[in-house]
């Protein structure tokens, strides 16, 4: 009876946590103004595996989470399958879902943002802001070290934010006695925050001075691009400050690492299990699950359907993390007040029928449509396309007589392929279905009639980036993060990949002022990007695994399998 009672309790608790987690992940992680005083860690609502009734969390893990619990030794190994290749050279900025997952375990920014969009301590244990809201001070976590045991100082932080070729510039400028130093903001910091300068107060405290007060700080400091790393280690993996580090036996070369096993382990004394990631082109995930795989992060409907049939597996949805968009350069020629591209019914139909993954119609707000004027950034001027670049790409609308126009997508992206196929199908219906033709013409101006034939084309990633840069195709289908912490920086970065779009900026009369450039880029993206659907992946978890009870998801939906113990939060 006692066992039954305990099981019922566990089940109830598990369902409660799952419901809470679902409530969390279904909320859009909207980036908001400076948050309330930071908690010491993510809320319980962000814990995706906090269920022991179904065996997701062991009793030992529950004891670990309980306040005042004594230290326990966890030697369990958790095997995890990830979709997408992992290339250490990308660290700490992830490019694939697999890299997002692994880099999140290895590298820390100063702060982190939980699934609710609230900051909590990362490498920085506390932070504060002055009354002008331009000077933000951060104090590093006491005892923070790199993997090799080297203490992390503010010089390392500043050096990490420099360009790869400028690593250590800030450190060299510091006087020998280590007294305070003031200098221009490192490039990456300037790009993300529009920071004006940085002051290294001492080894543990630094101050970031903004050009103007911004509500984006400190959330923007949680961007993976500002994660603190150090190079020079024996492996190609940059040294991080996270709890996990790469096992020495893990592959280090990019190509090898793209398809192999990457093992992460915590330093002695931590009670986190070893994480064994299977990345890249793994064989059928269902086979891995049958052979004892603990966790799989996937959106593959076959795997999810299979998992649903297996009592030992549990499927946990992650937040809607990716938004698939269609980029139609020809839309740039339309007037500012053009009709909306795709209505919600159309987007929902695409999500329901066109793709095979879990999807829904994309819903605003979209970060590239942020109405707030972005602060000017020096780095943005560097991305400003020259007049030559802006004319380099001849767009399809300038090529008369082209009958077959392409909707291109990255090879291997099945969701993008399905969306492109559906758009092509709508184009083929043009002569018989006026509604479809109108829908398509609203998305891609100039198509949908009998005289134009659309085809879908899959391009390798490099080729896709090239044609995207040229803007010569009828449309592009690709995915964007559903949420970003620094919208202006992402708008600038995305616009920098689309130099042809700035002709639209000229068209609407925007001058070349750096501050206005971002606004023009945002306007260009707003006109050319048509959000289609949002997708999410799921964690397929084996019931009864131990040691990862504290797994949470961050603002971008990336699970973190362990959370470092944090110092008390600061005062934002």
């Amino acid at each position, binding site marked *: 009876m006692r066992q039954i009672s305990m099981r019922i309790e566990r089940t109830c608790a598990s369902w409660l946590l799952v419901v809470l987690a679902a409530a969390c992940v279904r909320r859009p992680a909207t980036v908001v103004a400076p948050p309330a005083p930071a908690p010491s860690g993510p809320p319980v609502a962000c814990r995706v595996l906090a269920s022991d009734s179904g065996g997701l969390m062991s009793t030992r893990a529950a004891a670990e989470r309980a306040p005042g619990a004594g230290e326990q030794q966890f030697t369990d190994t958790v095997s995890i399958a990830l979709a997408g290749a992992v290339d250490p050279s990308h660290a700490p900025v992830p490019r694939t879902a697999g890299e997002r997952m692994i880099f999140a375990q290895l590298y820390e920014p100063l702060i982190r943002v939980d699934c609710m969009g609230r900051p909590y301590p990362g490498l920085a244990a506390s932070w504060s802001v002055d009354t002008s809201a331009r000077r933000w001070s951060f104090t590093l976590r006491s005892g923070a070290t790199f993997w090799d045991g080297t203490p992390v100082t503010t010089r390392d932080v500043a050096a990490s934010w420099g360009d790869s070729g400028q690593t250590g510039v800030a450190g060299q400028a510091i006087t020998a006695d280590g007294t305070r130093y003031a200098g221009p903001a490192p490039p990456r910091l300037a790009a993300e925050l529009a920071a004006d300068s940085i002051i290294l107060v001492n080894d543990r405290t630094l101050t970031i001075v903004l050009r103007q007060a911004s509500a984006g700080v400190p959330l923007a400091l949680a961007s993976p691009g500002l994660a603190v790393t150090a190079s020079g280690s024996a492996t190609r993996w940059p040294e991080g400050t996270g709890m996990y580090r790469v096992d020495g036996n893990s592959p280090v070369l990019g190509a090898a690492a793209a398809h192999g096993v990457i093992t992460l382990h915590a330093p002695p004394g931590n009670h986190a299990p070893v994480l064994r990631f299977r990345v890249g082109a793994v064989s059928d995930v269902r086979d891995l699950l049958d052979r004892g795989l603990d966790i799989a992060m996937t959106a593959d*409907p076959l795997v999810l359907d299979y998992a649903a049939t297996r009592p030992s597996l549990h499927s946990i949805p992650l937040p809607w993390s990716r938004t698939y968009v269609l980029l139609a350069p020809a839309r740039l020629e339309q007037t500012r007040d053009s009709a909306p591209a795709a209505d919600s019914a159309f987007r929902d139909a695409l999500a*329901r*029928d*066109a793709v*095979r993954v879990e999807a829904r119609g994309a819903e605003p707000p979209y970060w590239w449509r942020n109405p707030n004027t972005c602060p000017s950034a020096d780095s943005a001027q560097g991305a400003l396309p020259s007049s030559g670049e802006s004319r380099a790409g001849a767009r399809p609308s300038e090529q008369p007589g082209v009958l*077959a126009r392409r909707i291109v997508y990255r090879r291997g992206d099945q969701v993008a*392929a*399905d969306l*492109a*196929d*559906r758009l*092509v*199908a709508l184009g*083929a*219906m043009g*002569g*018989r*279905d006026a509604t479809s033709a109108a829908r398509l013409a609203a998305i891609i101006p100039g198509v949908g009639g*009998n005289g134009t*034939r659309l*085809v*879908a*084309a899959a391009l390798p990633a490099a080729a896709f980036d090239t044609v995207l840069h040229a803007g010569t195709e009828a449309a592009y289908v690709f995915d964007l993060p559903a949420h970003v912490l620094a919208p202006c920086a992402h708008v600038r970065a995305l616009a920098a990949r689309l130099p042809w779009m700035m002709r639209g900026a000229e068209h609407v009369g925007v001058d070349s002022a750096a501050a206005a450039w971002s606004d023009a880029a945002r306007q260009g993206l707003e006109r050319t990007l048509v959000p289609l659907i949002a997708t999410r992946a799921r964690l397929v978890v084996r019931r009864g695994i131990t040691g990862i009870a504290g797994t949470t998801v961050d603002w971008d939906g990336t699970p973190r399998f362990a959370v470092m113990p944090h110092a008390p939060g600061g005062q934002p």
Partner: protein
Amino acid sequence: MSFRSRILLAFLVVVLVPMAVLAIGVRREMDRRLTAQYEQRMTGLVSVITEELAQENSSIAGRLSSLAAALTNDNRFRLAALRTPNADRAYLLDYAGHAMRLAGLSMLQIQDSAGRIVSSGHFRNEYDRLEPTLPAVLATAPRGMAIVKARAPTGPFLAIARTDSFRLAGERFTVTGGIRVGSRFLAQLARGHELAVTLLAPRDTLSSDPRLLGDSSWRVAASSGPGAHAASADFMVDDLTIPYIDTGREPSSAVESARLLVSYPLGPLTALRRSVDLWFLTAVGLTLVIALLLGMWLSARVSRPLAELASKTARIDLDAMDVDFASNRSDEIGALSRLLGAMTRRLRASASKLREAERRATVGEVARQVNHDIKNGLTPIRNVFRHLAQVAREQPSELPAIFQERQGTLESSIAYLDSLARNYARLAPRLDREPCDVNAVVQQVIRNAQAAPSAELRVRLAEGVSAVLGDEVVVRRILENLVGNAVDSLELQPGSVTVSTEMTQDASHRPMVRITVADTGRGMSEQQLSRAFDDFYTTKDNGTGLGLSVVRRLVLDLSGSLKVDTAPRAGTRFMVDLPARAAAPLHGLPTAPVGAKAREKAR
């Protein structure tokens, strides 16, 4: 054209004409048979392809039928297709894709009774497209099959398609499927490297051998209308006509025609023809060479004995009759040689007789000449003696004076006879080339000449005429013969004989002495003149026929020349040119002319 060339030409014609006829005939026959073989093979291959298409059609039909049966029994599909709430629409959308791959098809679409695509395998996201006419048109197509231009996300493709149907809850669904018609499919139909199968659709062209599409010769062969059995220089083409439906065009119910062209390259046949031509040309060339050599050998073999006979015949002369025409050949040439040998022997006998006759004639001539010459020498003596006898009888006292007067005549006649005797004694008189005063000889001959009273003898001697190199006796004999003939030509009629001398030059500008003897006698006709210098030709009753012939020989002996100017009843004029002394200096004689002025003496 020589006999040898004619033989050669005839031989070549005889060899080459049959050879050429043989070559043309064999080539034409071979061409006809090979073409027939190719056409037969082509027809067989087209039949095979037709059968394979029928099998493919049957196979597609079977698979569609199985699918239709499976769909009828698939409740999950049924719920989704009938739009039952909470049905698994994803299953419906993905059904055609899975089924298409399972069935080994390239195209599969399931449509409801309204023609709306509810699931598409070749274009998963083509659901909801209205295409009601395609199943209907396919159902009515011949053999239920057509080439359909289907859509795919990456572009259209061609497929052999047909349709089937099934019912769910009373609603009729159609399942349309087919297999892709691409270069690989056409290559499978081609079944080899030689045959090429090309699909000519109204707006698409596919071929198992894409290189064909750029071949102008193939395009020529392919441009013939449907159903034609066409051929160009390099290809033989046959075709099948298949219904064609372009689902991307309006109206989609329009059925056009596609042609499945089966092309058989005639390259091997052409190569065979060229090879045969080459070998025939080689054979003809070789035959030509051999015939030429053989003809040359044969013609040489035939013509050489003839040439030898001609050469031997050319050597035959009265003085050379010893040509041997003996031959062992038994053919016509041998007979001809023997005939020529017999003829030569007869000629030799005749020549011997002729020489004997000539010898006898010559002896007679000599005798007559001797007689003539002696009479010429004796006549003055007889006249002197008659004169002396007459004086002794009538005027004895005058005899010594007269004798003394006429003694010179006697002595000169005696000397003449003496010289004549010495000459004849030598039989072959050898000319004594000594300076001779022509004018003196002329005067002496005129003086001794006997002529009728009606005849007038005239002498017109030029002064300063050089002496000639020659024997005086010979010159006298020349003049005596010419003057005697001139006197005879008067035939006792009144007339004159004029002997004149003058200096002249020959063609080489050598000084010559010309002696002209002209008479006003009867003259000679051309016929008489042509024979006047022949031996024994005479127009006089008592003539020997040797006078002019002797004159000609003597003039030639003196290195002189003789010209005659005569006409019937217009007299005759003989001109004898003798080399003057200037060309051969005189011995013992003055170099000056004999007379200082021309003398004319009438007798």
